């Protein structure tokens, strides 16, 4: 498939991440730190998960229900980690606010907090893409291509890149929604991230069926579009309300 295709697949998976990084995160060093921390967090969660699941792998039976259990436990664990991440962020926010008070500089405003959650989500998404797509991409730079038996329409690397892209968008923007939900104690926002994560993960099981990838992958893109749209609407609402309050006060 040569270097051109390999590079293309890498860009499909990580291009938007690069854009967001260059356009938003790279301007503020604190956001870079947040991104790296959240990447690390996600990796650690994966390590712990693999430690627990190592005993049961590899799954040799052809049935799909062991994968459901795998996905359920993994998603539950990672959502738990999200809460831990939130707590750590809250502590750090208190420290930063008290420090700002001491040196009489302004506290963290709403956009700052949203940017931090964006960087956090991006960290998760980048970790997922690097781990699940980029690590497999080295053979894509060679001459041969690969089609899995159960998905004979699209090359393996393309599916892998598209799924990585989908999950990158989902992780990035659902983190903003989740942090907003925890902050405002809004039930719908709090529940949104785990639900979307769970639905998207279970949807990948569709790829186990012969030619299921033709349905599964576009559906995943639909989920990421939904996340993006929900997040955008929520951010718009929140920021407009905030401005109104500030205006009125």
């Amino acid at each position, binding site marked *: 498939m040569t270097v051109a295709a390999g590079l293309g697949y890498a860009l499909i998976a990580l291009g938007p991440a690069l854009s967001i990084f260059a356009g*938003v995160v790279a301007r503020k060093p604190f956001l870079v730190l947040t991104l790296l921390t959240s990447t690390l967090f996600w990796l650690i969660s994966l390590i712990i998960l*693999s430690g627990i699941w190592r005993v049961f792998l590899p799954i040799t039976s052809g049935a799909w229900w062991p994968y459901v259990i795998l996905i359920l436990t993994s998603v539950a664990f990672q959502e738990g980690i999200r809460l831990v991440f939130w707590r750590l962020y809250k502590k750090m926010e208190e420290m930063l606010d008290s420090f700002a008070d001491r040196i009489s500089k302004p506290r963290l405003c709403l956009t700052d907090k949203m940017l931090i959650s964006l960087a956090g989500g991006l960290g998760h998404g980048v970790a997922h893409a690097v781990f699940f797509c980029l690590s497999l991409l*080295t*053979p894509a730079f060679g001459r041969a*291509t690969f089609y899995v038996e159960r998905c004979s329409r699209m090359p393996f690397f393309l599916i892998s890149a598209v799924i990585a892209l989908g999950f990158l968008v989902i992780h990035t923007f659902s983190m903003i929604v989740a942090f907003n939900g925890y902050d405002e104690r809004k039930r719908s926002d709090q529940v949104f991230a785990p639900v979307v994560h769970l639905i998207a993960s279970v949807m990948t099981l569709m*790829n186990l069926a012969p030619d299921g990838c033709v349905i599964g992958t576009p559906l995943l893109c639909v989920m990421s579009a939904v996340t993006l749209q929900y997040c955008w609407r929520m951010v718009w609402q929140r920021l407009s309300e905030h*401005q109104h309050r500030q205006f009125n006060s």
Partner: protein
Amino acid sequence: MGGGSVASLILAIACVFQAFFPPVASGDAATLESVPDLVKAMYINVESFPCVRLLNHSGQIGCSNPGHDKIIAPIVRLRNRNDQLVQPSAVLLPLDQMTDFFLRVSNDPELYRKIAGVLVEANGADSVLEFSPDRKFPQQAFAPYSNLSHHWNPAGSGIMWNKYDFPVFLLSEESTQTLQKLADKNEKTPNGYLANVAEFDLVMQTTKAGTHDSESCLREQSCLPLGGQSVWTSLPPISNSSKKHQKPIIMVTASQDSGSFFRDRSLGADSPISGLIALLTAVDALSHLHDMSNLKKQLVFAVFNGEAWGYLGSRKFLQELDQGADSVNGISSLLIDQVLEIGSVGKAVSQGYPLFYAHAAGNSPISKKMIDVLQSASESLGSDNVQVKPAASSNPGVPPSSLMSFIGKNASTSGLVLEDFDSQFSNRFYHSTLDGPANINSSSIAAAAALIARSLYILASADLPIDLITLNSIRVNVSMVEELIECLLKCDPGLSCGIVKSFISPSNSCPSHYVGVFQDLPAGTQFPSYADDISRFIWNFLADRTSSLASNSSSCTGQCRDEGEICVGAEVEGGGRCVVSTTRYVPAYSTRLKFEDNIWHVLPVNSSDPLSAADPVWTESFWNTIGLRVYAVQTTAYDWLVLLIGIIITGASYLAVIVGRSYISKIIKRD
């Protein structure tokens, strides 16, 4: 998709945990557990046997990649004779089409240009009635007579002696199935966005060095001459006392090597391994006699190597005799009275009873006497009903055999070749991959061995009265014949069988009877480092069977203390034992080669040796690696499309980020 995400999840988990836990081997071939597994699933290594580049003094034969690089071409099936190729392709060919295809290729430059490589299927052998890539008169330049138009091998096509500038591989049974599936897949997707290609790696050193004949390639050291080790033994062993009163010698010879289009698939069951097995069995039968030293003549058994490539073994043996070399210490060419060669004896059973033909060298009375002896031996075998007839007088002379070297040296040699055919080979698969154990009959070989053992006893007795009781006690071990067929002609048990493992530790279970290249000391050594498994087995077997008890049978791994003693079974665990036997290695390589200053030199044609003009001086090219892989490839347009999509997605997302940022700053600036 086997859970693109799920396989990736398993992969990620396994990857992360490599450092912490030892990996557990997965028995399921369908799950990929690491990137190397993925690479292995993408690039499939195909089990195959190559055809390599061989050079002689005037040119080249065989197959090679045309340049320095690998050849990559889509796999196409050629089913009918007149199929045409559209683009340079890797042709998948059934075995029964092989002869026609290669003959067509040599005569059709259009087709030649479109062939990137050839893959020959392994099945379809049942529909092939005859297949021989050798010529109709093999090695005719060595014939001591002038009528060269006789077709000893009527099935011969001569395709193995042509030069092909493309790689050719013979597939194994399983890889044939794989490749047929891929070729069918290629046919189903005609628009060409996806193609299954074969990647041939058959780059030969002589092509890279630009040397196109033996002399230049030996000088540039891009090739090595063909050769190996021949073995001779004496029954009974030659002792110091017998050296003073030397008896006339009856030489019994057989050949141990075969040729083929594909170097690693030279089985040669009928030609010549059936003769080799008959010789070994006859030696075993005669070894039970007690008073061999009272006979009037000495029996010398020789197994020559490299006979298929210009009678290297027999000619070198005769040269060593002339030079009085150490390897033939104890015998002299003046003493050789009669030569009895055992040729192809595996297909003699017709109408239920074995019938052999004796091809005599010339019309001397001694040769006629030899045929009479054979006939009396066959009568003594009684109810076994083994028959021997002299070969038809319409034959121009002896068939292609080592006897030609003896006759070439001394035109008045008395000898004969025992074969299972009269005027034409009964072996329809001479020097092909189909000359396997199914092509021979063990009872035919056993009958030949019995015939020869008894004839040798009669011949060695010369004018002494024959003791009929002793003669009738010479019996052949039929189960040994069957065991040797299993060992020397099959992969299972192959060389891991009991009788072979009791003498040597083989390097490979699958036997191959291609002579290979000569790497030992050209001057000859009794402890060669590069003798192949078959030569070492023959040496140990003959030493064991012709031995008399040693004075002190202690364990040995190399040399024995007493002169005249040799170590049998030195490679086996626990060492071997020293026995008194005269069994020697004789190097087998072209008499036109001389090793000087660390390089092989081709000597000019020797006018005193009439066969040196006929010697092609075969050499085999060096190579780095030989391999065959298949994988799927996309068109370059698709690759660029993917890159374009990636760039567009990155660009579009960057645009979206900028637009989003400006919107949000607008909302904030309302403040």
